[in-house]
């Protein structure tokens, strides 16, 4: 869903061809979500079928250039004005794993420990990516989003540890 709308968003600032859309998408999101060119073309043809974009000829190298339609702009405006619902996100495997560890009598502290090391490593890598990111504001904010999520997970693990310690006293 978000690829479709992201392409519309990129097209809203001017006509572009497929490869250009891919490059700009990756630059804005810090290559956090690699996009293959096939996905771009499939998405463009669906957008065209739905009347949200239309081809406006080709550039000098024969690449087809697309532009956003009025319906496309309306669709995009609707996206930006609608909050993302919690239920649109996938289930949290870690929360389920910890719950199952508690229910199944597994050593919860060990599960927490293993995850904490991995999450801290991920957080270090994200921080390093942010430090070396030459990209603009969009890329930085995407990295920040991932940093905040990793941080929240880390805090939640601390909380799990404190609470399960309390219960075992």
């Amino acid at each position, binding site marked *: 869903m978000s690829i479709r709308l992201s392409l519309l968003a990129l097209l809203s600032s001017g006509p572009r061809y497929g490869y250009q859309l891919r490059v700009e998408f990756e630059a804005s999101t810090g290559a956090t979500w690699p996009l293959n060119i096939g996905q771009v073309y499939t998405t463009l043809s669906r957008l065209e079928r739905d009347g949200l974009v239309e081809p406006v000829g080709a550039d000098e190298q024969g690449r087809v250039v697309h532009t956003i339609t009025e319906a496309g702009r309306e669709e995009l405006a609707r996206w930006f004005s609608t909050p993302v619902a919690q239920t649109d996100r996938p289930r949290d495997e870690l929360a389920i794993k910890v719950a199952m560890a508690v229910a199944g009598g597994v050593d919860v502290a060990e599960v927490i420990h293993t995850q904490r090391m991995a999450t*801290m490593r991920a*957080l270090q890598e994200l*921080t390093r990516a942010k430090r070396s990111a030459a990209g603009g504001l969009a890329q930085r904010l995407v990295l920040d989003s991932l940093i905040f999520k990793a941080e929240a997970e880390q805090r939640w693990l601390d909380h799990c540890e404190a609470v399960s310690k309390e219960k075992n006293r």
Partner: protein
Amino acid sequence: MSVVELRDVTREHGQVHALRGVSLEVSAGELVAVMGPSGSGKSTLLNLAGGLDRPTSGVVTIEGEDLSRVKDVAAIRRNRVGYVFQDLNLIPSLTAAENVMLPRELDGVRAGRARPEALAVLAEVGVEEIADRFPEELSGGQRQRVAIARALVGERRLLLADEPTGALDTATGDEILELLRARCDAGAAVLLVTHEPRYAAWADRVIYLRDGLIAETGAVRLESAR
């Protein structure tokens, strides 16, 4: 080269074992973060590393000198170690530059030399323009930068920071870490106590203390973090 080293260090406050045998080394150019729940011994560790407190047993060395054997620990504290705390940082009746000059003047350096040194280090941390303002006229981030300048003046190579991002918003907190990171990359050793994972993530190594012991370490080392 190790700038500060703790070997089998314990610290007891009466019946309370604040640290129960901790070994840790911080090298030049290295940023080490210490995390752990409250009461885990984080601040005790920092105070021992900076010679502000003495261990019950074990050895603390700063740039190769065993603190239990040197005559003047206070001199080592003043000349080699810089401290940054969450609050109680700057003296309100002194300007930013005067605050930074203070440790040098306490060391007997004349104002005529201490001031240009202070201005240089204020420039390094990016707040040259506020040198003649008083702390209350500065933002939280600027105050913390001045505190870091004061901790660095006189080429001290060990920087101890206890929750230096305390009341700052995350964007300003990140700037403070960026600054500490840059000082590390320029050769300082930094030991950072924080309860915030996002700031610990700037470190080369993250250490977790629990009940006075190092619970987890090393595994999160990023060899090419710099």
